């Protein structure tokens, strides 16, 4: 109870690091850990880690995913993370943040959902961002042979497009374009040996409702770019008129219920009718979270925006639904 009221700043930030084997995940992790930033991190790595991780507090785990018995068919969580976070809290004063490295083949959904679903984890930690490392040379092959590579890109808030020295500038542009087709809303950093400023990876606040859609690189830019015919795409919509909260809830509730397994991430900022504050909303599959955040600024247009990243997205249907939430 008291925990739920804890200030956001007291919650331990958690960064999730995903990426295929060999993409440079461990290189990035070791960079984060050895950089002179004065912070200490607890690192949760999987049993099949590729290289050694040099850190005082490393926890070796076996990714244990289970389905919640809560009537939500796509609600899977990582039981090992629930246990490990509980264990780490017994020495909370020994670290400033947690970094979770997933296996190369991992679907990020169960990791993310753990931070929404488990009340004990929620009371003590906050998901900061999902960071995905991809290998510029081998990504096309990975996308061709696995769902997971695509899922990892789709879930990402930050994408580290690594090993750019192994491809030509044309190949690099092509691979970046493909990434954007899947997830137009992640921030992409081109790197060699995973070198980039650490503040581009940590402290992103990507799941912080007050910052939802605050860092969109190119909202509504380059829509309908389907030349690669990716399985996963992202779509964004805007409406200028105020939204009726009841209509919106009815629509989004039914949509998440019906198409939850296809919807990897959903984010929105809404202009509710007769409401000076902005309403922020996010979901990972069917699990949604929303709250009022700061007021609309005087000069800014009060535009409601929503973003979907997922499979089988039907643009006209989604647009009709969103526009149907407008207040009469």
């Amino acid at each position: 109870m008291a925990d739920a009221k804890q200030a956001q700043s007291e919650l331990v930030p958690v960064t999730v690091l995903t990426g295929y084997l060999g993409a440079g995940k461990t290189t990035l992790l070791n960079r984060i850990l050895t950089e002179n930033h004065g912070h200490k991190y607890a690192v949760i790595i999987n049993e099949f880690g590729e290289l050694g991780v040099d850190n005082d507090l490393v926890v070796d785990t076996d990714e244990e995913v289970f389905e919640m018995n809560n009537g939500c068919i796509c609600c899977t969580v990582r039981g090992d993370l629930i246990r490990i976070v509980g264990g780490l809290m017994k020495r909370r004063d020994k670290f400033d943040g947690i970094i979770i490295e997933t296996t190369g083949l991992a679907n990020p959904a169960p990791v993310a959902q753990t931070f929404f679903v488990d009340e004990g984890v929620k009371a003590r930690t906050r998901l900061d961002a999902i960071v995905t490392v991809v290998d510029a040379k081998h990504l096309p092959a990975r996308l061709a042979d696995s769902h997971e590579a695509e899922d990892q890109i789709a879930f990402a808030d930050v994408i580290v497009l690594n090993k750019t020295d192994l491809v030509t500038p044309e190949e690099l542009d092509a691979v970046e374009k493909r990434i954007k087709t899947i997830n137009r809303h992640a921030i992409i950093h081109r790197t060699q040996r995973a070198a980039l400023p650490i503040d581009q990876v940590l402290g992103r606040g990507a799941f912080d409702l007050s910052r939802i859609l605050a860092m969109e690189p190119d909202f509504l830019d380059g829509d309908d770019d389907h030349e690669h015919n990716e399985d996963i795409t992202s779509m964004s919509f805007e409406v200028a008129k105020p939204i009726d909260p009841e209509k919106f809830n009815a629509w989004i509730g039914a949509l998440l219920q019906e198409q939850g397994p296809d919807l990897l991430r959903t984010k929105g900022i809404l202009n509710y009718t007769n409401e000076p504050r902005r309403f922020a909303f996010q979901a990972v599959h069917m699990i949604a979270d929303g709250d009022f955040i700061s007021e609309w600024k005087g000069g800014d247009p009060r535009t409601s925006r929503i973003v979907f990243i997922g499979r089988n997205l039907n643009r006209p249907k989604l647009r009709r639904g969103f526009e149907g939430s407008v207040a009469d």
Partner: protein
Amino acid sequence: MSQTEKAEFLVETRGDQRALDAFVVAARFSRDGRTLAFAMGDGTVRLAPVADASGDWISVPVHDGAVLSFAVDTNADGFISGGDDGKLRRLGASSAISDIAGFGMKWVEQLTTHALDKGKGLIAAGVGKGVHLFDETGKKLKEWTHPSTVTGLVFDTKGKRVAASHYNGATLWFVAAKTDTPRKLEWKGSHIAVAIHPEGEALVTAMQENSLHGWRLPDGQHMRMSGYPTKTTSLSFSKGGKWLASSGADSMVLWPFFGGGPMGKAPIELAGGDGINCTQVACHPKEELVAGGFEDGLVVVSDIASSRILPVAPPGHGPVTALAWSPDGTRLAIGTENGFAAIVDFARRAG
């Protein structure tokens, strides 16, 4: 516990308390009742002399990291400790430390012991998916593996069986079996704690989805106990097994294991009503009394039959994480997440 007791907190009048400045992971009295140990998140164990609790408490560094699991030794005066440094260690009352086993980077999260006749005993440690069984000397007897990480571990009253909870149910292992064919109790989902009825009538687990699941052991019949607002992390059967006390609601929830219960019976709720969740329960070793600790630090003892509540420790010390009765039931040990630790002597005259 006289009837004239006012609503004052017993820890003030009959207790010794300390601020230990680390997370209290567990509290245990040695089997001879002479030493009280608090196992801490900073890797130390603090030893308090029970007969002279106002005297010096000794701090012994046992783990490089946090203590994650803690139990009384099979002998009269020691303790066994498991840490996030992968070590399973023995701590004597004289503060001597010795290694029983090491598990590399794996956490020793579960631990249970059982004292048999003639100085013999058993130590079972849950490390990842494995349970390692040792004799009283620390000699390894067996190793059992499970389909997923072991989340709870307990001996039955006679030390003949060990129950381990994990994903999709619990496993009952027979300690003396020549071939290890366990009894598997299955129920889909994540089971996060386990308790065995003292007469062997039932095995109960706590589940991720804020409920308990039970199996009646003679016939395998399932039992569902639900309605908790949060997860149950602490389970305790009363002496003789008439009641199962549990945390996870804004009261202590006690399920009746008699008269056909718990199926179709409502539990009783003790010390509830203020919206603060119960985090720890501990049934008294001799009487039908139960101690409960809450999220705000409040600790009470309740007489189960009359529902009468005795306030023991006031709110304000952080979530209660440890409660333990001395073997003779005269003393209660209390520990919280914020490092508050206390021993309350119910036999001592107030003053």
